[in-house]
């Protein structure tokens, strides 16, 4: 049986199109690239200052000049570019990277995202998430639908400190795929075959519209 995180990663990998420039955040997003169909050419943008096409390999001893934000070597240099970090964020904030895929603690009906801090705990990182949300036209959130204690992470109004207001466009969970925008809230557009619509609605603490064109997801591998 594949994990919730793997099915989410495989689904996003299917949906990202050939030729897209994408920034992948920590968590589930970092696990997506191995699932890309080899025929697709996806360009990875990474915060320290790199756009590249190709594969990542683990770090070697003593040579740190080609490491990305997750300590992985960035390869295929002939088809890529390096830049300083302010330029990297000009690329992000300026809307030149079409899509970002992020993890989240909560997403709400107003297309708000909370992913950097839980109340009462000191923040350990903001990283690039706030800039990615502010700049990227498409903000995809990947997360399991509930916390470890069973609390829904898709809610009507985020209770955690926000990362960005009204910027999320899609939510991918182990239940299915949702669009979201501040006007319409959540709409379920695709569902995994092992969850009924009623089961899905029970795990979302917010109104959810059902697309008249609701599709069943096939990620090409058995789910159980």
């Amino acid at each position, binding site marked *: 049986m594949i994990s919730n995180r793997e099915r989410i990663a495989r689904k996003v990998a299917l949906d990202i199109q050939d030729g897209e420039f994408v920034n992948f955040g920590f968590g589930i997003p970092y696990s997506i690239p191995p699932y890309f169909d080899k025929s697709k050419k996806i360009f990875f943008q990474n915060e320290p200052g790199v756009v590249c096409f190709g594969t990542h390999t683990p770090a070697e001893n003593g040579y740190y000049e080609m490491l990305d934000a997750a300590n992985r070597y960035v390869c295929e240099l002939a088809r890529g570019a390096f830049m300083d*970090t302010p330029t990297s964020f000009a690329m992000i*904030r300026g809307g030149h990277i079409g899509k970002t895929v992020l993890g989240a603690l909560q997403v709400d009906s107003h297309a708000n995202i909370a992913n950097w801090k839980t109340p009462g705990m000191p923040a350990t990182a903001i990283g690039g998430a706030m800039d990615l949300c502010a700049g990227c036209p498409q903000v995809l959130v990947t997360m399991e639908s509930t916390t470890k204690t069973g609390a829904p992470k898709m809610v009507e109004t985020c209770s955690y400190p926000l990362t960005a207001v009204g910027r999320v466009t899609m939510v991918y969970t182990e239940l299915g795929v949702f669009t979201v925008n501040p006007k319409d809230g959540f709409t379920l557009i695709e569902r995994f075959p092992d969850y009924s619509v009623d089961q899905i609605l029970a795990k979302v603490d917010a109104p959810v519209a059902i697309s008249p064109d609701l599709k069943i997801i096939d990620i090409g591998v058995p789910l159980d």
Partner: protein
Amino acid sequence: MGKITTFEEAIDHIQSGMTVMIGGFFLAGCPFGLVKELTRRGGKLENISLISNDAASEFKMPHAYGNELIATGMVKKVTCAFIGHNHVAMKKIADGELELEMQPMGTFAERIRIGGAGIGGFLTPTGVGTPIAEGKPVINVDGVDYILEKPLKADVALIYGSVADENGNIYTTGVARNFNVDMATAAKYTVAEVRKIVKPGEIDPSMVTIPAPFIDAIVLAKEEDYLL
């Protein structure tokens, strides 16, 4: 000769109460030797304000330079975008011994860039409507809200370069450019730790990533500082 100096002389420019920038993004482009030398001044320096993307996080480094630097107690404030790997810093923050200014990374980067460029502030959409905006002016331009963010500057910047010529022109490969390029511009005194020093002219002028006027001193890295 000229700008080439020793780790000891370079770090002698740092005095108690100063603001110090340290370049690097985790392992990439962190001037390990300079951080080590600064850490050796533990007990002699105090009230240092540190500006560093990840607080010189060790991030799987057995040397744990960032942890050791914070553990000396010389740092009173950290301005950064990421600190999660520096467990010494996290404990000191929880204990109220270390002040933290956590920033969105793009805001952090741009504040350094404008600090070095003589610009008094910039307007960013990043963080509008979030706790980051609290206490800062929000300015509406043509219907869009932006936060006014101010420049970051330092007394001393410790940066990394791949190759320097003796005049201080620097070429840096790959991801190691990160914050090093702009920190070099934003400090009164900038020291570059480089893996190789060459004669002027040996770096193609078109490939220079940091031009000489931004560099005050050069130190040659010890290769053993860069081994895991």
